[in-house]
Structures are given as C-alpha cells and as structure tokens.
C-alpha cells in the first residue's frame, strides 16, 4: 500500500491541466461545426481563468498565420487594434519572419517558450513593446503546437499559463489531437451535409421537372415495372396518383397490342443498351381512348455500367399528327379534285373538238351527198325515158339493183351525217307527258325488225298506264339507236326485248338482245366518241346516246357477254305527269 503523501505543486498542476484538457476534449467531441469547436475551446479556457490560448490558422497561400480565435478579451483586442492600427482579422504573422511559429508550422515541432517571446512574434515589429506591455504576463509560459487536419498542418494552438512547464506538453498535444479529430469529424460532416444538400436540390429539381412538364416521364426497372412516374404519365395511363403505377407494367393499363409493342422496345433498350429515340406510336388505353405519342427510352446504368432499368419520356403529338394527317388528306383530296377537273376539262376540250369536226364534216358531206342523190334521181328519170328495148336491156343487166344499192348507201351516209349533227348540236330538253307503252311501241315501230328477230315489250306494273314527264324525242332517238344496234348484233336472228320499269325513283328503260355480245375490253370504251367495231360507222351512235341521256339528267350503262347478248339500261328521273 502506498504511503499517502501530500501531492506536490507541480503534480497537482499537471493533474489539473490533464483534467482541464480532458474536459475540453469531451466538450468538443461530437461537435460538427468548426467555428463551434473553436468557440467551445475558447470558452472553456476563459472559464478556467488560469489558462489562455490562441488558435492561429494558415492563410490560403500557406505563408502566414491569422488569428482564428483567442481568449484575449474583446476590450484588450480593441485596445491592441487601436495601438497597432490594424484590425485583428486583417493581422497576419509572416512565417518567414518568425522563429517559433515557423518551426511549429514548417517542422511540426511543439515548442515551449516564454509568453513574451511568443507575443513578440505575434506583434508587428514596430509595436512589439507596447503590445508586450499590454499583454504582459509575469513568468507565464506558452506551449505552441501544430494543429493538424488529415495529417496536414493547418495552423497552431498556443496555450499559456503561469503554471505551464515542459511536462505539460503531452497534455496540450493531446488536446490539439482532440481538436484535430473534432475538426476532421466536422469537416466530414459538412461535406456529407453538402452532398446531402446537393442531392436534395437535385431531387427537388427532378420533382419540379416531373411535376410540371406536360410530357409523360417514367422510370422502369429491368423487368419493365414502373419505379416512378410523373403526373403526365399518370394522366396518360388514366390514373390519378403517380404512386398507383409503382410495381405495375404497361400491360396493367394499355391495350395488349400497345403494351406488347412497348415491352419489345424496352427489351431492346435493356438488353442491347440501345436507346429508342422519338418513336411515334399510338398509345391506346383499355377503354379505347388513344393518343399519338413520340417516345424516347434510354437505359439507366449503375456505377459499374450495368443496366438497371430505363427512363422514358413520351410527348403527346396527337393534335400535331391529326393536323398533319388532315393536311395530308386535304392535299390528297385536292390533288384528286384537280386531277378530276383536269380530266373533265380535257374531255370537254376533246368533245368540243370532235363537235367542231363533226359540224364541218357534216356540212362538207351534205353537198356531195345531195349531188349524188340528184344524179341518182336524174339517172332513174333518164332510164324511164329510154326506149322500151334499151330500158329492158338495162333492167336485165341490173341497173335497178345498182340504183337501189346507191340509194341504200346514201341513206347510210345520211345517217352518219345525222349522227354527227346530233353529236355536235346542243341538246334541248323539252319534257312532255307520255306513258311507257306509247314510248316503246312508237319507237319500235320506226325501226325495221327482220323476220328472224322476235321483238317484245315488257312494262313494269308500277309504270303501267302511268304518264310521266320526259323528253320523248330524246328518249326515242336513244331507243332507236339502241334497237338498231341490237338488230345489227343479231345477224342470225334472236330475241329483242325493250323493257320499262321503275327503280329507286328512276325510270329504267332497257334494250336487250341475244346477239354477238361485246368483248369485256371494249365495254369501257363503247360510249366514247369515234369508237367503233363496225365496218361502217363513225362510232358516234352510243356517244350521242350518252350525251342525250345525260342532257336528260339520266345515265346509261351496258352489260354484255360475248356470244350471249347485250343489255343497255338507261335511268332517267321519274316525274309523274300532273294531268292525266
């Protein structure tokens, strides 16, 4: 057992300073702010009334020290500032001009010196004595130790006391080490805080972007499940809150077709790391609503470069696309309209040219034909005046047949001229009341039907004994033309049927034969002027018919089968005659 002896003065001082520094170390432990650490240290020193201290920090250039904090009272600082003419915050100690501080900072030594010697180094050269007088400590000692941060000297810690001795150095050093570790913690904390603040800021910016951009933005994991979506995407999916989508896929919201398509695209983005840029797609929800969107999807990678998911952004281009489509349709329509009009104009020009030619040819053929007629007449007269014998011989030799043949050809040429006239002349629609039976019977009676052709008239009950307003002359001319054609189509005989009926408010008139028929390739052309398959014919007959029927606000069509026969059908407006 140790003998209890009174503790010596230096030992009690040591114990005291050890307790003091230990206490300061405890106080600053866990403080995460540099200035706060310094403030606590200074406060504790002031409270001790026994020890003083200064904390000096290196300037940025590392050439001088500056007072960061001190236990010197503000009053004394003010006095010193007034004395020296420099504010404390502007005051620097040049390391090159100092002895102690230089050793501490540059060599990392802890030195022990008389306080006044230290003060000397801390004063401007011209002001050394007044400063020492101001801060004078009798027999006080200072210990100056380097202040480190992450193994780098950032300044000095100076502790002064009348009780200070060299064996206190470890305690002071220990305190500075605690200060250092506190500072290091604080710095780490501040950089962490800084990072957190930055992250928070980025998060806020992203959130602001996601909440305010009208485009749909979404993040998906490797399995195309939504991780996070913005309000735009929520709207597109048809849900109110973006959170509802988390963990779900497109298949939960969109039609299987569109979801499948999107899923395939995402597989490409995720597996092949290929971004999808501006793909125009129809995004269709299960309720049938759809929008046109332009979609961009890019892979998201972690720090190792592994794809962890994707981010997509879709812009609604429905209006734009609809306008574009509308414009396209409009321009296509316009083109079609122009094409049709041009065709009509061309056709009109062609018809006008044919009309002019027809007029010219008609006129020019009229005179020669008249002369031939006249000569034929004179020839017949001459034959009559021949002596009986001569006449007999001439007749025996067939002169009458010759005359008849010429007359037939004149008749035929005259018909061509009449067709040309019909074609070239303006048609005037002059309606009159007539019934179907009268119309067909009168017309059929004007043409010569050969014996081997059986002709018949069929009238629909709905039209029987009903009078209607048509232009009988126009219809007769067309019917004569069609009936004549029909007879010509049956050189070996057959059946000729003229029919009248009522269909959808139109009178239908048809002429049917059981003749040779018209080949398919010719059916489209038969109503065109100058188209003919006959050895004799200008090809105007059916063109005239079409013109006449169109002037009658009607239409004409044809059906035919080679070897079986042909049927021409006309539709003209049905207007019941008011009287009778």
């Amino acid at each position, binding site marked *: 057992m140790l003998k209890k002896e009174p503790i010596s003065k230096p030992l009690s001082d040591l114990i005291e300073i050890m307790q003091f520094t230990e206490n300061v170390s405890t106080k600053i432990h866990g403080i995460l702010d540099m200035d706060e650490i310094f403030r606590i240290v200074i406060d504790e020193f002031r409270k001790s009334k026994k020890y003083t201290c200064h904390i000096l920090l290196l300037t940025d250039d590392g050439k001088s020290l500056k007072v960061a904090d001190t236990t010197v009272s503000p009053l004394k600082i003010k006095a010193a500032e007034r004395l020296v003419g420099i504010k404390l915050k502007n005051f620097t100690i040049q390391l090159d001009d100092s002895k102690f501080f230089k050793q501490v900072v540059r060599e990392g030594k802890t030195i022990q010196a008389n306080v006044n010697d230290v003060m000397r180094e801390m004063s401007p050269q011209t002001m050394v004595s007044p400063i020492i007088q101001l801060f004078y400590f009798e027999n006080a000692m200072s210990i100056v130790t380097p202040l480190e941060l992450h193994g780098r000297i950032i300044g000095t810690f100076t502790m002064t006391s009348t009780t200070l001795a060299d064996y206190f150095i470890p305690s002071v050093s220990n305190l500075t080490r605690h200060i250092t570790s506190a500072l290091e913690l604080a710095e780490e904390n501040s950089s962490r805080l800084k990072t957190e603040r930055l992250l928070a800021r980025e998060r806020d910016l992203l959130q602001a972007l996601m909440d305010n951009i009208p485009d749909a933005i979404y993040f998906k994991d490797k399995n195309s499940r939504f991780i996070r979506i913005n309000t735009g995407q929520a709207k597109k999916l048809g849900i109110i809150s973006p959170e509802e989508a988390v963990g779900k896929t497109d298949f939960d919201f969109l039609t299987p077709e569109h979801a499948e398509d999107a899923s395939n695209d995402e597989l490409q983005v995720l597996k092949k790391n290929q971004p999808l840029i501006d793909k125009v797609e129809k995004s269709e929800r299960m309720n049938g609503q759809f929008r046109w969107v332009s979609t961009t999807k890019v892979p998201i990678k972690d720090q190792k470069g592994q794809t962890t998911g994707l981010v997509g952004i879709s812009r609604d281009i429905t209006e734009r696309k609809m306008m574009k489509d509308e414009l396209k349709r409009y321009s296509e329509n316009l083109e079609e309209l122009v094409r049709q009009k041009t065709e009509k104009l061309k056709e009109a020009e062609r018809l006008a040219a044919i009309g002019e030619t027809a*007029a010219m040819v*008609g*006129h*020019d*053929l*009229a*005179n*020669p*034909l*008249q*002369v*031939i*007629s*006249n*000569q034929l*007449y*004179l020839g017949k*007269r001459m034959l009559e005046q021949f002596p009986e014998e001569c006449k007999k011989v001439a007749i025996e030799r067939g002169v009458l047949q010759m005359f008849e043949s010429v007359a037939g050809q*004149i008749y035929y040429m*005259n018909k061509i*001229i009449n067709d040309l*006239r019909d074609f070239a*002349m303006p048609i*005037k629609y002059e309606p009159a009341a007539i019934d179907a039976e009268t119309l067909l019977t009168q017309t059929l009676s004007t043409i010569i039907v050969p014996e081997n052709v059986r002709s018949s008239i069929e009238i629909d009950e709905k039209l029987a004994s009903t009078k209607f307003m048509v232009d009988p002359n126009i219809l007769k001319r067309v019917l004569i033309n069609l009936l004549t054609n029909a007879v010509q189509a049956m050189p070996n005989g057959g059946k000729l049927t003229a029919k009248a009926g009522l269909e959808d408010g139109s009178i239908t008139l048809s002429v049917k034969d059981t003749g040779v028929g018209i080949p398919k390739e010719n059916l489209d052309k038969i109503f065109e002027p100058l188209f003919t398959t006959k050895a004799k014919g200008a090809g105007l007959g059916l063109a005239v018919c079409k013109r006449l029927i169109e002037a009658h606000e009607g239409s004409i069509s044809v059906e035919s089968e080679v070897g079986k026969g042909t049927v021409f059908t006309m539709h003209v407006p049905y207007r019941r005659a008011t009287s009778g």
Partner: protein
Amino acid sequence: MKRKAKTILLVDDDKQILDSLKMILESEGYTVETAQSGEEAVAKNKEKAYDAAFLDMRLPKMQGTDLLAVMHKESPRMVKIMMTGFPSLENAVASLKLGADAYIMKPIDPEKLLELVKNKMTEKSES
C-alpha cells in the same frame, strides 16, 4: 289554157348542186336560173321576178339569212326555200321569221324536194 312555166332561181356556191338540181327541176318543166353568190342572186332577182328561190345558208361573203332578208323585201310573194348542210335551230327560226317558206336539210330526196316546191308555190298562189 297553157300556163306559163314557173321560174325558179337556185342560189348555191356549189356548181354541182346547181347543175344537178337545175336538171331535176327542168325535167319537171320549171324554168331554172342559177346564181353562185348572194350578189349575183340579188342582181338576177332585180332583172326578173321568180316564182321560187332555193337559197343556200352558207354563201361566200353573204350569209344565207341576209340574202333571204333582201330577197323577201324585194319579192315578198316569191317562195323562198332555205337549204343547209348544217342545220341549227337558231338558223331555222331566224329563216322562218325573215320570211322563208321552208327550211330543208341536205341531202334531201329530190322527189320530196319537188313535192315541197310544188306545194309551196300552190300555197303562195292561193293565198
């Protein structure tokens, strides 16, 4: 009583028409004279009164309707028959208004033509 032969003036720029028609009409006993232009026709009409005239619609320099107007003014009692190779409703109506007795389209059957001119002259003399 032997009647004096009726006189007819034929106006057409086509000589073949004139010649053949002249022969046809003469074979029926008419006295026929011809003119190949409107001017010639007007001149001939001033020298002599004809019972009938056939006027072609299209003549060099002068329109058939213009000639008709002149002839009708000079000889209102003469039968005037218009002939045309290319008929139009306007011309037909205009001709009848200007005093034409008939309007015929070429080619016309000579027998019908003879019948027509005979009838028209009878109508005129009876009126």
